[in-house]
């Protein structure tokens, strides 16, 4: 069953949706950068970005009235955006055999 977003939640819906994608990309970029630069700070920042993503997903799920099977989308976003950057990173390593970053040689 679909329950539309309430009038008062319009802004929070747009904002949290955008934040999901931006935090997801920030997490992916910081994760990759932490490997390239071998700095722990970037790794911590990447997890911070993921924490922002979790909050954004929770806020979006509430604002968009996700319930029942709609919550699967929230789970898919949390799981997908957590593992996708790790998977993408490993694909980068595997596909660049002669050009590996210092941290992964």
């Amino acid at each position, binding site marked *: 069953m*679909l329950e539309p977003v309430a009038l008062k939640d*319009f802004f929070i*819906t747009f904002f949290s949706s955008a934040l999901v994608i931006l935090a997801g990309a920030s997490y*992916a970029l910081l994760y990759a950068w932490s490997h*390239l630069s071998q700095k722990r700070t970037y790794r911590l920042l990447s997890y911070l970005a993921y924490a922002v993503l979790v909050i954004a997903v929770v806020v979006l799920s509430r604002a*968009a009235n996700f319930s029942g099977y709609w919550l699967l989308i929230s789970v898919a976003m949390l799981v*997908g955006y957590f593992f996708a950057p790790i998977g993408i990173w490993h694909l980068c390593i595997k*596909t660049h055999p*002669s*050009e590996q970053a210092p941290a992964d040689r």
Partner: protein
Amino acid sequence: MSTEGSEAVIQHTSGWLDKARTQWQNFNTWLELDSSHLSPGRQLSVKYFTVAVILFFAQILFGLLAATQFLAPGFLYEILDFSVNRMVHINAMVVWMLYGFIGCVYWLLEEESGTEIVGLKLGNIAFWVLTSAVTLVVLVYLLVQIGPGKDSSLWLINEGREYIEAPRWADIGIVVVILIFFYNVVATFSKGKWSGIAGVLTLDLIALAGLYVAGMFYMTNITHDQYWWWWVIHLWVEATWEVLVGVIMAWSLMKLLGVKRKIVEIWLYIEVALMFGSGILGLGHHYFWIGTPEYWLTIGGFFSALEPIPLVAMVVHALYDAGTHSFKNSNHPAVAWIIAQAFGNFFGAGVWGFMHTLPQINLYTHGTQWSASHGHLAFFGAYATINIAFFYLAIQHWRGNVWMGGGMVNNWRWKWALGLLNAGVLGMTIALLIAGYEQSFIERAVGGSTWGGYFDAQNHPAFVSAMAWRLFFGLVTAAGFVLLVWDLMTIGKTETRKAQVIE
């Protein structure tokens, strides 16, 4: 008219033609472009690029006229109505993207296949047929505009389907031209050598030509009709065009940054898989409110949430390549536009798309200026940018593969053109976002999608001022375009150094 009168007219006309010819020759001399630097295939490619730039100008011009009509509805009323300006604005965009893509493919075809283009003569004929047809269609749009509700109007004036309004004869012509293009691509690779890039390109062109046919038949039920219409609009753009850009990008990364073939091809396969995995069923977000079954709400919502993942993957991969290649490249303006593509695609398609794509909010936002906001940034970010990158690549070789790295004369021009065009489009996107937010709030949520709600929203100060800002940023975009054209005509003119070789 007397014989003397006729002779005077002929003399006058021939004098005018001579003058025009002389001016054209002077212009060509001033350009100092030497086509002998280009292979015959690439000479065909730059013809496509040239028309693409002219159509890009038409897109901006008619966009500015339509934007002005939002503020002054009486402007050009019954001469060039908003409906006509909007149609030409969008059609010009679609067609200049296609011209750009075809030009890009012809540009890479000979080098990638290792042989000359098989049907070059046919390709040249197809170019002139397509260009004549496009000119005629635009003239009919502008001068005839509408016809009676008969089949003859559908065949000769306007097919009536939004975004693909070209009359039926032109539709058939487009398919024929695309088939010639397809033949040239397949026959050339068959004669020369196949590669991963060639395979993906060939399969994508089959889908590109095939999906267009879905917009060429009518059904009496509007839901059924819209169902198929979206196959052209969504699947063309979010599947076949994205893959085409992936192919062009893969090839240009090899040439500009020196990335290894094996790497770009593997990534091309990964991105195509991710793109098709999320993009095809992402089509569902267009089926929310057209009368299709309810399961499309769930399918559309779920796959729309996944659609940004390939875009994130591209950003990470770009970072990896940047890290390993330290951004050493042979053409600074082209690489700058490719970077603009990575970000523009991510923000325009990913962020702006997901912000309003879940059905719970899309109920209020679909068909408002929200869609226009998303469309402006996504089309420019994903597609215009890669074409502009190729314009710079083409001009570099047209001038004899000259240096286009640091320390170029008048370096500021391409940087300012890049800045103005991107700032202009981003500014329009933000202005339309505000207008769309106001519209979905007042017209849809408060006004309940009634005519009263519509007019309340259209006359609201927030909407009106957002539209004024949209026009302002449209003018910024136009200024960027003028500078871009000036730069393309002059860049590398006095350069004597050869392009940097990238290993």
